[in-house]
């Protein structure tokens, strides 16, 4: 059974509407027949389905309709056309920090936000310590939320959304939260949730993250669906090449050509880097005095054949 199913989903925004003009102006414009609205399709005919345990990565440049699509999946928005069906409890992290109240304590906010995500009091009582421990905020429980640093806020938001036990986890550009250590921890946490057979959707501008975490990929461009596939590597390669060349693939052959282009470019870059490094080292060897030359040679050795570098020679490497 499909856990998430998007069937021909289209979402339309209306701009130039009465949002900014107010009732008086609206009536005036209606009377003078001067009232116009502009339409804007954020998503057009997007179709995909996810089974249990799938992790979908959504890629696409800014304004591709990724976040809007997530809103439709979480049920915040009702699609203008098409249908979204989901089975199970959804935990969505579309933006860290929404649903928190600046003037309440960390403890109160944990419960408030938890309640908004649909968890019960008993559940939160049981999980509270774990949430705080994961967010590393043990010493800040009775601080006002506004007194926390932005990193702390994000950590708390992430912990609440993940430590609880969703069937479906939806993340919009939030995995790059906190410092390096926390980022690693949150990445581990994601993998753990997925290994328990949960379903997830991840929007990220880091293609590396998508490659690492996802087994399916959806590529959007200006609201149109370019591809939905389980060949993550191929499409991520193609997407990265697309970012460099701005050529949108029209067919499978295009995609393959893009991916190939990406491989070639990567290989070329690797080669270029290696050449630069060699040149630098050669330069050192040629002009340098003996100490530096030895160090350089030792570094090359350490890089290429580390097993040869016994401990006695470690100090040769220098600083």
């Amino acid at each position, binding site marked *: 059974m499909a856990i998430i199913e998007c069937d021909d989903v289209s979402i339309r925004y209306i701009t130039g509407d009465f949002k900014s003009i107010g009732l008086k102006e609206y009536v005036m414009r209606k009377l003078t027949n001067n009232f116009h609205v502009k339409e804007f399709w954020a998503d057009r005919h997007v179709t995909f389905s996810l089974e249990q345990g799938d992790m979908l990565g959504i890629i696409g440049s800014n304004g591709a309709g990724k976040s809007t699509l997530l809103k439709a999946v979480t049920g*915040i*928005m009702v699609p203008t056309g098409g249908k979204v069906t989901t089975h199970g409890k959804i935990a969505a992290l579309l933006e860290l920090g929404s649903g928190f109240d600046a003037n*309440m304590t960390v403890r109160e906010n944990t419960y408030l936000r938890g309640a*908004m995500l*649909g968890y019960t009091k008993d559940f939160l009582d049981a999980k509270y310590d774990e949430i705080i421990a994961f967010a590393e905020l043990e010493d800040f429980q009775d601080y006002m939320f506004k007194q926390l640093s932005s990193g702390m806020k994000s950590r708390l938001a992430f912990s609440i959304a993940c430590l609880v036990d969703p069937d479906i986890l939806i993340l919009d550009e939030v995995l790059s939260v906190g410092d390096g250590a926390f980022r690693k921890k949150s990445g581990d946490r994601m993998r753990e949730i997925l290994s328990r057979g949960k379903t997830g959707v991840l929007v990220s501008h880091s293609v590396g993250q998508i490659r690492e975490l996802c087994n399916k990929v959806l590529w959007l461009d200006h609201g149109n669906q370019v591809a939905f596939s389980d060949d993550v590597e191929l499409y991520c390669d193609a997407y990265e090449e697309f970012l460099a060349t701005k050529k949108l693939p029209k067919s499978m052959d295009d995609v393959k050509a893009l991916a190939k282009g990406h491989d070639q470019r990567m290989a070329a870059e690797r080669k270029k880097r290696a050449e630069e490094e060699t040149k630098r080292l050669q330069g050192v060897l040629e002009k340098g005095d003996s100490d530096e030359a030895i160090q350089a040679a030792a570094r090359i050795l350490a890089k290429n054949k580390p097993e040869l570098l016994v401990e006695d020679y470690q100090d040769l490497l220098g600083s």
Partner: protein
Amino acid sequence: MPQQELAKTFKRTRRNLKENAFLFQQLVNRDFQQKYKRTILGMAWSVLSPLCQLLVMMFVFKNLFGRAVNHYVIYMFAGNIVWSYFSDSTNMGMSSLMNNSGVISKINVPKYLFLLSQNVSSLINFGLTIIIFFFFCVIDGITFTPAMFMLWYPVLCLVIMNIGIGMVLSALFVFFRDIQYLYRIFLTILNYLCAIFYTLDHFTPAVQKLFLANPVYANIRYWRIVVLEGHIPSLQYHLLLAFYALFFLAVGAVFYKKYNHRFIYYF
């Protein structure tokens, strides 16, 4: 068919409320704290503010109208607390969706919970002023009668009506930002039509009846009959209040149901 639809909506709403009872409790807690900012004085302020208002009005109007009415202070106070609750609750209700737009556009929660929790916090405030009101009744030598136990009825009707009006206003406020200024003007006009500090004795009976077309005045009138005249109003009053409450609730519910999916585009 519409009946089935209605039953389904009702059932879903009840299930939603049950599932979100904890969230609701958290929201009420938040709104209450936001209002009083955790201070003792904050709480006292909500009582002090109508008291000060009352003192000023007493000072200004007592000599003007006071001689004609027995217990003029209570007469005015009854009008004032009902009016304050009405304007406070609908004003807060109006901004309840916009104030939580950040949450509504990022988390899938039933939107009307924000309106309801706002109403609960206004109601608690109203409860506090009612206590003060009875305190003044004692001072002013009002005879306490069993009829006063019926005061839950106008309160209940007003709560329901406020929720209905809040539904319409909060939705309108999402679409038209200037509605708050227009509503403020409307409130000022309505305030003068509520006979808070004057009596209707100078008007012909027909005009006096016409005043009852103002739902807030009808509610105030119910309070005055119970407290000042010491008896339970006629059945017609009950029906009238019930009609206003259900009418506005129905209008609000229809309005809300029709437009609630579109709110998100306007935040």
